């Protein structure tokens, strides 16, 4: 375990950024989001939730796939992929860190998505334990301990210090390169940190969504859940705005589009939303013509279909972003509870 004084963190950022790109939550236009660190950046490690999740560093909202040149009847395919450069993403919360494991199951399963893979290989994840979990948080329902996040390096705020604990080889390498900035933590530090973590876990237990029961969910009863009459009422006010899907760290749906640059065509992919009515539109119509069906799709995917394909694992990490952002105050928690999963 290492430590660094809070007021020296800027030196740490600068040292990391000297060697590789550093993504860190910053206030940009008044909102916390992961951004590239530079001198004078308004770093915000206090806000618990960035508006968009950390998935953006591995699965960007918009990403070039392949370019084309066309001349008359001829087409040239230009592989515009680049091996990712090494980068660091700092300040990832436990829930977002867990979401990477869920996205891995999608993008790293055969056939591998090389765009995602190269970023995963070159990215070092530095997580940050949550000091003050919020009302909308329910990561504990998915077995996540926000006081002890995963990652290549886990960090924790306590007193005057940020504590630094490398967890993987990648994390050790980064730690070694920063040795002259990091002090070794002593027994007293370790004890203080343990106490801090105990405190955080106590706060977690007092959260309104603590104890959310997911036992009614998973791969079983797929058709029974699908055919439930409850979806109608749950979805009745949904606007289909897609906000819940765009802020979600585990949502993975994307669209593929072509952009004519004038001197060639750029094919790119961008986040899309199953909440939109044209998502499944085809020549003879769409299999999900109503918002109820699209709403049901989103939650069935996270709570039933994904578990069915991934050994029972849910495609939600309880980050609570959709709880905060939905304009009609509908969210996955209400869905979970409506089928008999009770809160405390």
């Amino acid at each position: 375990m290492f430590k660094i004084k809070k007021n020296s963190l800027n030196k740490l950022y600068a040292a990391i950024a000297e060697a590789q790109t550093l993504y860190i939550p910053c206030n940009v236009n008044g909102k916390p989001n992961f951004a590239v660190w530079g001198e004078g950046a308004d770093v915000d490690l206090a806000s618990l939730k960035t508006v968009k999740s950390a998935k953006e560093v591995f699965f960007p909202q918009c990403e070039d796939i392949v370019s084309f040149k066309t001349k008359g009847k001829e087409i040239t395919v230009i592989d515009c992929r680049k091996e990712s450069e090494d980068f660091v993403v700092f300040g990832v919360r436990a829930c977002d860190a867990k979401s990477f494991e869920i996205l891995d199951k999608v993008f790293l399963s055969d056939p591998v998505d090389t765009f995602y893979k190269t970023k995963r290989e070159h990215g070092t994840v530095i997580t940050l334990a949550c000091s003050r979990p919020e009302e909308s948080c329910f990561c504990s329902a998915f077995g996540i301990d926000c006081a002890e996040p995963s990652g290549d390096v886990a960090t924790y705020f306590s007193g005057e210090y940020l504590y630094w604990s490398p967890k993987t080889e990648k994390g050790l390498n980064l730690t070694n390169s920063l040795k002259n900035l990091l002090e070794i933590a002593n027994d007293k530090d370790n004890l203080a940190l343990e106490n801090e973590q105990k405190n955080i876990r106590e706060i977690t237990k007092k959260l309104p969504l603590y104890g959310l029961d997911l036992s009614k969910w998973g791969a079983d009863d797929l058709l029974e859940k699908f055919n439930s009459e409850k979806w109608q009422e749950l979805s009745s006010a949904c606007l289909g705005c897609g906000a819940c899907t765009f802020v979600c760290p585990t949502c993975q749906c994307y669209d593929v589009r072509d952009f004519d640059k004038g001197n060639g065509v750029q094919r790119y992919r961008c986040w899309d939303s199953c909440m939109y009515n044209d998502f499944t539109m085809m020549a003879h119509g769409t299999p999900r013509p109503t918002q109820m069906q699209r709403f049901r799709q989103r939650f069935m995917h996270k709570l039933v279909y994904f578990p069915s394909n991934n050994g029972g694992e849910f495609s939600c990490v309880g980050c609570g972003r959709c709880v905060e952002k939905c304009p009609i105050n509908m969210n996955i928690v209400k869905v979970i509870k409506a089928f008999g999963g009770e809160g405390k």
Partner: protein
Amino acid sequence: MMNDMLIPVVGVVTDIRRDTPDVKTFRVVGLDGKKCFEHMPGQCAMLSIPGVSEAMFSITSSPTNTEYMEFSIKKCGCLTDWLHSIDVGQQVTVRGPYGNGFPVEEDLKGKNLIFIAGGIGLAPLRSVINYVRANRSNYGKVTIVYGSRSMDDLVDFEEIKNEWANEKDFNVHLTIDRPQEGWDGHVGFVPAYVKELNLNAADTVLLCGPPIMIKFTLAALIELGFNKTQVFTTMELRMKCGIGKCGRCNIGDKYVCKDGPVFRCDQLDEMPAEY
């Protein structure tokens, strides 16, 4: 860097045949003059014209055809309109193959086969039919029931008339929706025709066509004593990636691009009715 399934190769259109007023069949080979890749009957490929868009099509040629791949494409939107306007020599991009295909080497082997198609639904079945012809001794009797709106809307009409109808132990039954001058064959919808024909309820069925035709034909087959486990069909959903990642083509926990497009009809009962 390793290959990525999203990055296509270039193919050249070497032949274009007009099948019907709104269906053309395109022959495609790679720039090296060879097939772009190998496939199994029922598998699909993503075709695109850069700057227009990309879409999924069944590979209608048989894998036993070693020279080229063929796609029968119905004009119905942005990309398909474009494809209908191109000339021979035009290059397109191709990626694939995608999907599971029909179980030609497993469940279908040694069986009497009944192919039932409506309209452009013949495209995936043509691949199987010609595969069966090329491996004739592995399969039993073949019955083909094919219907479309009019005589002019029958895809692959020349091949059906001149080749399939003359094949040993092949029975071909064509039907069109309404009477038409010059047509002395059967008139009526496929589901009704299926009930009139003396089909053997022990045979294995491959059924492709518009959703409504599939629904009524399946009902007719059940009435005739067929079990859903004997009937294979294909599903069509909007697709973007073709590899189970973009999240667009799922029905319940299945991705049609990867777990389909071929399903046995009893499997459909276990899936949400959302297709």
